[in-house]
């Protein structure tokens, strides 16, 4: 089968790669681009471990065909930290012990970033609904939800203090 040439923007960099026509975006990101932060938990859209922002929308990379992303802009977990500074979400996950094995963490971080990008001050209920597509089999959800709420609060403080803690994709 002829391989397809893809050009796209990932985490701010222009990226080119070759993929098979029936390859998923998840496999292409891991195997062709070398971004292994994106995880496969189920491969069927149920667990959210493969979440990426595709043109600003949170999406399961396992449910996208790699040839579809030609010309798109993506953010993966590798794009959250900036200039060596962890994103407030990452900092709060660390401080709040919101991970154990960590397989689900990149997906939670990306889905939480999508939420905070459109709703910087969510309620606990809004966080729970926004993360309903992400499963964690070890940590339990309370610490994760609390970490997201803490990050939102930190980012609000930073914004109100005059600096911007996060940029949008």
């Amino acid at each position, binding site marked *: 089968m002829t391989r*397809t040439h893809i050009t796209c923007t990932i985490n701010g960099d222009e990226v080119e790669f070759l993929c098979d*026509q*029936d390859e*998923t975006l998840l496999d292409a990101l891991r195997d062709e681009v070398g971004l292994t932060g994106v995880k496969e938990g189920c*491969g*069927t*859209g*149920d667990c*959210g471990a493969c*979440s990426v922002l*595709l043109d600003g*929308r*949170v*999406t*399961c990379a*396992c*449910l*996208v*065909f790699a*040839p*579809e992303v030609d010309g798109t802009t993506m953010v993966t977990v590798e794009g959250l930290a900036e200039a060596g500074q962890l994103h407030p979400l990452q900092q709060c996950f660390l401080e709040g012990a919101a991970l154990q094995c960590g397989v689900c963490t990149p997906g939670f971080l990306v*889905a939480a970033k*999508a*939420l905070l990008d459109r709703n910087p001050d969510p309620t606990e209920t809004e966080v729970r*609904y*926004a993360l*309903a*597509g*992400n499963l964690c089999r070890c940590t339990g959800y309370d610490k994760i939800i609390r970490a997201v709420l803490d990050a939102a609060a930190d980012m609000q403080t930073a914004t109100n203090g005059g600096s911007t803690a996060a940029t949008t994709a």
Partner: protein
Amino acid sequence: MDYLSPVSVEEATTMLSQTPDARVFAGATDVIPQLRAGRPEPQALVDLKGIERLMALSQSDGSWTIGAAVPTVRLTESAELRAEFPGLVEAVGLIGSDQIQSRCSLGGNLCNASPAADSVPAMIVNGMRAVVASGSGTRTVPVADIVTGPGSTSLAQGEFVVEFELDRPPANTGDAYLRMTPRTEMDIAIVGASARLTLDDGVCTAATIALGAVAPTAVRVPDAEAALVGRPIDDEALAAVAAAASEACNPIDDKRGTIAYRRQVAGVLARRAVATAAERASGRETGEHRDGASQ
């Protein structure tokens, strides 16, 4: 498997006629899990999202046009659509997670032909029509006539849905959709119920009611509709709706619910959906409905 990305309806119909074993897709949220589960691979996958008309959402004086491949997040984000069709928007808002809604479409939800597809009862009660394209042009079909059984549709080989037409509602009209799932989020309906009512001074002048997940396809419930038209929406009318909805079911027994349970829940949800639609039609929504949306 080849990936094809046509940019016009004509190009797509040509591709589909040249490759009989091709399958169209929009969000691929049903297609990829099915391929993974071992469904035979088609020769080609035709991505409909590159066609502008399938990705357009527009309104005119008389109607809405919703592209068949529009990701449903764009419908839930539309305040205007939600104001006119809160029931339709709450139905699509129940599909999967945010990740799924970034991709999944009305065309895919309908043409996947699952009896439990959440948007279908809401599309039916609102009288939506599908514009279907093939090599010989387009035809317009009521949404209710597309699905013929689990996994099967009335679309001929090479035909696909381009867009949906949705007439703006008459004054004093309201719609609602409710589903029962074991989990609040990320679960498949045991029963779904949608209702749309038009009221004139408290008296019902038009009613449509449809159920999902209780028969091989979504079903209209004409006896429940007849029990409402010409009457006020009182306890007696609501009891008649519940009885007719339970009667209209032809459900299956499975791990998620028995036949008797599905019948009873169908009656309860139909009654509640009618009550909410009536409140919306009369502009007296209490807001209690949200909490009952799934439990």
